[in-house]
């Protein structure tokens, strides 16, 4: 009995290591198997959103700092890439620039706002985000509210955009996994639970929050960059909108906050819903998100990934080394209010 359990958990661990790479391989060879142009576009935009979702999840899910201001990074990424390409730089240079500018911005946003906690931090990020949008609407060098156009030399190559997005989202998954399994990730989990107790064992909550904010911002900035390059045209009311911030926050919450694969799942669901349903029912998609969000908060705070885990509950207990603790945790998580 014990031997079998050991074998099956080992097998599962191996699968957990192999499966993501298999998925990546499929995504990389899929276009060669003859994918429709629409499907390529759908997968592209899903990968862009998923990258944002993974980024937000590091700050919001892992470190417990709920930000409503990630449109700032998305928009700054878009504009940085646009401006750098306009200056004759390569798109890749543009994306790196996007990451750098977004990370820099995250630092300046974090310095004052991370002095605040919980809902006060969340509200402050709304203010910062709206302020940035208003400034960008009135900034002359970027064309203000009328938007910015990226003019790229050479023919339009949808697959290049696609592969860029896939490589970036794969990179985001790797970065997220590394962070979550590091001592830095452990410190962030502690900060989420009790900032003061974390400080009492030498974890500086402020600097650790600044760091994770920078990583999350950089990922979102790159996503904004690749989105902008493909879109060719964007404006502050789009990339810097509050709707963008909400979308980025919704994805990990829907998928399962605090885990890499929850964020990925949320991004994929959001990408598909956004692209397919918006086209068919343009007025209905917000209602759908609202409904979904209420259902998730009420019924399954751990998102769809949590729901899936609960369906395979007995297996999960076998997986984790902690005997019986899970039962109580699962019981507890239903009673204890979650941050979202």
């Amino acid at each position, binding site marked *: 009995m014990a031997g079998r359990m050991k074998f099956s958990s080992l097998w599962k661990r191996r699968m957990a290591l192999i499966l993501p790479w298999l998925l990546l391989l499929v995504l990389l060879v899929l276009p060669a198997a003859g994918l429709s142009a629409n499907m390529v576009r759908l997968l592209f935009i899903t990968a862009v959103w998923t990258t944002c979702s993974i980024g937000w999840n590091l700050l919001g899910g892992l470190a417990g700092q709920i930000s409503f201001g990630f449109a700032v990074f998305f928009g700054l990424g878009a504009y940085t890439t646009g401006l750098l390409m306009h200056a004759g730089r390569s798109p890749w240079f543009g994306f790196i620039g996007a990451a750098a500018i977004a990370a820099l911005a995250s630092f300046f946003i974090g310095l004052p706002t991370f002095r605040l906690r919980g809902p006060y931090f969340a509200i402050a990020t709304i203010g910062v985000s709206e302020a940035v949008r208003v400034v960008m609407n009135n900034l002359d060098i970027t064309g203000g509210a009328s938007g910015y156009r990226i003019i790229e030399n050479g023919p339009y190559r949808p697959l290049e955009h696609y592969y860029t997005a896939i490589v970036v989202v794969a990179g985001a998954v790797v970065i997220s996994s590394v962070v979550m399994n590091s*001592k830095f990730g*452990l*410190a962030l*989990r*502690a900060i989420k*639970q*009790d900032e*003061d*107790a*974390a*400080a*009492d*064992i*030498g*974890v*500086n*909550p402020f600097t650790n929050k600044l760091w994770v904010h920078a990583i999350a911002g950089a990922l979102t900035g790159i996503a904004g960059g690749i989105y902008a390059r493909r879109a060719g045209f964007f404006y502050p009311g789009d990339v810097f909108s509050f709707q963008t911030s909400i979308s980025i926050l919704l994805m990990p919450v829907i998928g399962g906050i605090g885990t890499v694969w929850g964020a990925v799942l949320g991004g994929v669901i959001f990408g598909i819903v956004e692209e397919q349903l918006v086209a068919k029912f343009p007025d209905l998609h917000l209602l759908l998100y609202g409904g979904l969000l209420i259902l998730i908060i009420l019924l399954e705070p751990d998102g769809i990934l949590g729901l899936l885990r609960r369906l395979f509950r007995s297996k999960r207990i076998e997986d984790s*080394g*902690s*005997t*019986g*603790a899970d039962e*109580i*945790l699962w019981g*507890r998580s239903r009673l204890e209010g979650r941050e979202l």
Partner: protein
Amino acid sequence: MSFDVPEKQICGFIGPNGAGKTTLFSLITGAIRPSSGKIHFRGNDVTGMDSARLVKKGVARTHQIVRPFRQLTVLENVQLAVHYGRRAVLRAAAAREHAMESLKLVGLDHKVNRLAAVLSLGEQKRLEVARALATAPELILLDEICGGLTASETRAMMGLLQRIRETGTTIMYVEHDMKAIMTICDRITVLNFGQKLAEGTPAEIQNNPAVVEAYLGTSEGSVPSA
């Protein structure tokens, strides 16, 4: 008030409820910034230094009301303290090894994979001590680690305190259990309304009329708190 804590001793701090014992600890560990006065540690001025930096200098504390990271395992709770404490251990395997030493010392090494949330109060109190010890402190401030414990748990905690002292760590200790504090402490400081009322060996304190008055009250006949 002003006082010194000699190295490698157990210094007790007692006083009626609201005397300022926990506030004193919060000031020393950087949780509260003092509006005036100075705090020195090993000859260096550490006034107003934040908690995380003080831990790296070798000052750690436990809380009267336990604050474990409930959704982390017992081992993760302590491992984190090894990573970010004075030793600043980088590698996870090495950190886990150090963490196990602390957990063995408090007798929690058989529950390492449990979530902190499922431990009993007594176990959570010991986890709190293990976590503070794992930062490798030179000075540890223990705030009522016996509060709410049974008599046998208290005795075990006293044994633990002795072992901590034997490792060369200086202890500042707040407790309401008079028997515990009188037997274990080398020196005792009595606080009342944020002022130092008396200071001395346990025997001196027991015979100090001012202390007796503070605890038992005078004409107003206040309720004794310990």
